Structure formats: structure tokens, C-alpha cells
């Protein structure tokens, strides 16, 4: 399993500096690929619509996932409910490139996450803080993303989560070696995974930003704060000109340190998704699956 785990982390490394876009049809997948997405997330409904519709949200219809796999040559990801081992087995049978065990869907298990080490395909999981991130890595996640708050178009939570994870990593790195045992107890994380952070100052897997990114400037902000790439969910296909916005976000991630270019990229993008403020949300998806 060790070799598989390495290969899966390697795939995440090849996605770095890229944008992963939520799509709900083969046509949208093609638009995303043409706009420069490094991967697509196949979904029946984007998070903003899941939020609006309410009810129980589940894994997508396999036929939709297969149609999207046929439509594009870039990696295809899809979501399973937290703890839903069988949905994950189904996606693995479809030869999905990456499974997102996601708080965007309704959790299937309110205590246990999937034992991801039992799978051959890679998993990405959301995290609000270092504890959540290292627990997911301990369970076998090959990639981490901030949870943010999906489907809001509000970047504040993604910023909060990314800053917190980075702050906590800096703290771990500044510790005395003999303090790591107590820290792993405090964070409720496996000691060896924490030790990786102590030694390298980084997560042992690639770390993307997700949840609320709506503009090229949002995407660049997340990169500036230490994200290695960005997931954009509702922000693209809920906006006025998806194609143009998608392409602008791709370029913004590649050139996040160039304000002049970001100014160009931010021009005439049409309407951004409307967005919901934190105070207006009834359901905080980020609280699912700690």
C-alpha cells in the first residue's frame, strides 16, 4: 500500500499551481478543460444549489461521472459522503482519479471517516485546522484542502482555515522535539504525521484552498496565504461569464504575485456569483466531519 500511497501523493503534486473546477455536465467539463482547469470535480449539483435545495445530498449518478470522464483528458474527481465506504468503492470501480470525501454532501457517518488506506485511488479531504488535516492524512488522504464554506462565494472561511493551518504548522516547527508527544495528544493526531510537519514545516501532502473562492483576486489571495492550488466550486458556473472567469482564475493562480496582471485579469468578467455572508447561513458545512 505504501507504493500506492506515494503514487497518489505524486498525482496531487502534478496538480499544484492549478485550478480544479466543479462541473455538472460533460459540456461544463469541456468548458473547464478549455479554460485551463487542471482537473474537474464531477457533481450533480454545485454547492450553491445543494445549499439552496436542502435535503440529503449524495454521490453523483455514475453515468454522469462516466460521461464527464469521456469528455475530458484531465483528471476527474468526484465526491462521496463522509464515511460512506460503499460510495467510495463505487467511485473506485469507475476508476475515478481522485475521491473527495466531502462535507459538501450530507455525512453518512457522524463519527468515522473512511479508512482511505484501504483504497488504491487517492482521496482529498477538507480541513479547518491542523488537527483535522493531520487526522485525514493519518487515515490515508493524499491531498488536503481547506473546507472554507462551500457554495457561499464568500472567501472569509477559506482564509481563516488556511491562516490557522499555517499558524499551527509554524508553532509545531518552533517546538522542542520532546514537546511533540504532548502536541500530538492536544491536536488528537498521529505522532508520526505531526513529526513530518515538525521536520519540514509543511503538510506531508499537497494543500489546496477551497470553499468560497469567486474571483481571480480570491484565488490569488489563497495562493499568497500558502495554498498550492485552488478548488473553485460554485464561483464559476454561477457567474455571468463562466468561460472568461474560469480562464481568469487559472491565470491568476499561475501569476498570483503579479498585481498588474491580476488587475488585467479582473477586468470585465461580468457578474460574480451573488454570494451569501457567513451570518446569513443556516447550515455550516465546514462543521461536518472533524
Amino acid at each position, binding site marked *: 500500500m505504501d*507504493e500506492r500511497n*506515494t*503514487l*497518489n501523493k*505524486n*498525482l496531487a*503534486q*502534478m*496538480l*499544484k*499551481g*492549478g485550478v480544479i473546477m466543479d462541473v455538472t455536465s460533460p459540456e461544463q467539463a469541456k468548458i473547464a*478543460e*478549455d479554460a*485551463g*482547469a*487542471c*482537473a474537474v470535480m464531477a457533481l450533480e449539483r454545485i454547492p450553491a444549489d445543494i445549499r439552496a435545495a436542502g435535503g440529503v445530498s449524495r454521490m453523483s449518478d455514475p453515468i454522469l461521472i462516466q460521461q464527464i*470522464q469521456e469528455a475530458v*483528458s*484531465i*483528471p*476527474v474527481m468526484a465526491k462521496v459522503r463522509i464515511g460512506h465506504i460503499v460510495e467510495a468503492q463505487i467511485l*473506485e470501480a469507475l*476508476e*475515478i*482519479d*481522485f475521491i473527495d470525501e466531502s462535507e459538501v454532501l450530507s455525512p453518512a457517518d457522524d463519527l468515522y471517516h473512511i479508512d482511505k488506506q484501504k483504497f*488504491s*485511488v*487517492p482521496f482529498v479531504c477538507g480541513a479547518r485546522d491542523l488537527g483535522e488535516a493531520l487526522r485525514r492524512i493519518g487515515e490515508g488522504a493524499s491531498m488536503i484542502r481547506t473546507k472554507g464554506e462551500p457554495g457561499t462565494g464568500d472567501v472569509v472561511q477559506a482564509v481563516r482555515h488556511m491562516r490557522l493551518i499555517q499558524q499551527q504548522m509554524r508553532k509545531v516547527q518552533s517546538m522542542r522535539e520532546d514537546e511533540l508527544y504532548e502536541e500530538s495528544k492536544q491536536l488528537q493526531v498521529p505522532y508520526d504525521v505531526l513529526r513530518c510537519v515538525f521536520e519540514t514545516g509543511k503538510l506531508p501532502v499537497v494543500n489546496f484552498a477551497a470553499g468560497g473562492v469567486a474571483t481571480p483576486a480570491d484565488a490569488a489571495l489563497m495562493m499568497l496565504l500558502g495554498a498550492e492550488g485552488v478548488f473553485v466550486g460554485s464561483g464559476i458556473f454561477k457567474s455571468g461569464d463562466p468561460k472568461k472567469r474560469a*480562464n481568469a482564475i*487559472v*491565470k491568476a493562480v*499561475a*501569476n498570483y504575485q*503579479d498585481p498588474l*496582471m491580476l488587475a488585467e485579469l479582473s477586468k470585465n468578467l461580468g457578474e460574480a456569483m451573488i454570494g451569501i455572508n457567513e451570518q446569513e447561513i443556516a447550515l455550516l458545512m465546514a462543521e461536518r466531519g472533524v
Partner: protein
Amino acid sequence: MTVGVLALQGGFAEHVHALNKLGVSSIEIRRPKDLKSPMDALILPGGESTVMGRLLRELDLYRPLLDLIRQGMPVWGTCAGMILLANEVEGEKDTHFAVMPISVRRNAFGRQLGSFSCSGLFTGIGDLPMTFIRAPIIQKVNKNVQILATHDNFRVAARYDTMLVTAFHPELTNDTRVLQYFLGMANAL
């Protein structure tokens, strides 16, 4: 010696890290102005060739880099980087730099479940660890292309003039011998 590493998307940091390990300085190339600093060789990293191909053109890097390669700057393409250099990409009408007389097949081993690592013989180096991630293969080659490695009869590394391509990712392993081989190519000029 200074090596430019295309840094638009993908595994460019891994190449920069490997160069650092050998004490070779590097420049990350994101914008045309990054090409103003002199460099002796160029690395095109792994990642998604569709993304890099598009960004190369949209960020006005395509033409100046093509000119540099045509003028004989040594270039090494890993995985997606190999696709960028190939004259022909099977089943696709779009090519990128199209400077190397090879045709390649993208995702030749299938999706991520088909990714694998192995040990293989590399001409001029010996046995190497090879990591293939949704990797392409080399299908057809012109007679002047030298095949440097094969896996299960698939061609996975080749050299032509000042160009080196590998379908696998030496930068994902701790083994720097392919990088040294490439630096040797560049030094010999």
C-alpha cells in the same frame, strides 16, 4: 550554470529542489520578463499539458521559448513536458512546441489506477527508479531519435539533438542521475 524551469503549473518545485540539491541555480519562468536573465538550459515539468499549453500562449511565453529551443537551448521535458515538445500528439489536432520528431500518446496507461513505479534501465546511466503518473508514452520516432529507456516495450525516454524527454518523473524520486545526464548534455555544448 543556470537552468530555467517553466513554472506555470504542475511539479516545477520538485525540479527546482533537485537542481538546488546539485548546487545548480534555477529561475522559475512565469512571465516573458523572467526570460531576461541568462540561462543555459530549460526544464518543462510534469503537470497537465493542456493547462501549460494554454498558459504558454496566453501569457506570451510560447514564441520566446520556442525561439530559444530552436536556437539550440538544451531542454528536458518530463511527462507533460514531453507532450509539449512532441511533433504529434495521438488523437489530438493541437500540438505545442512541436520541435521533436516523436509522436506521443497521452494517458497511455489509463487513469490514476494505472499509475505505477518500477525500476528500469536507462542507457548511459543504468538501473533507475521510474515513477509514472497518468503517463504518456512515445509511439513513433524519426530515425534520428535515440531511445534511452523502455518499459514493457513502451518507449519512455528519448533524446534528439539538444532535447531530452522522459515519460516518467525522476524529480519525484531522490535519484538525480537523469538530471545530471541532462546537465551533462547542456555542458557538452
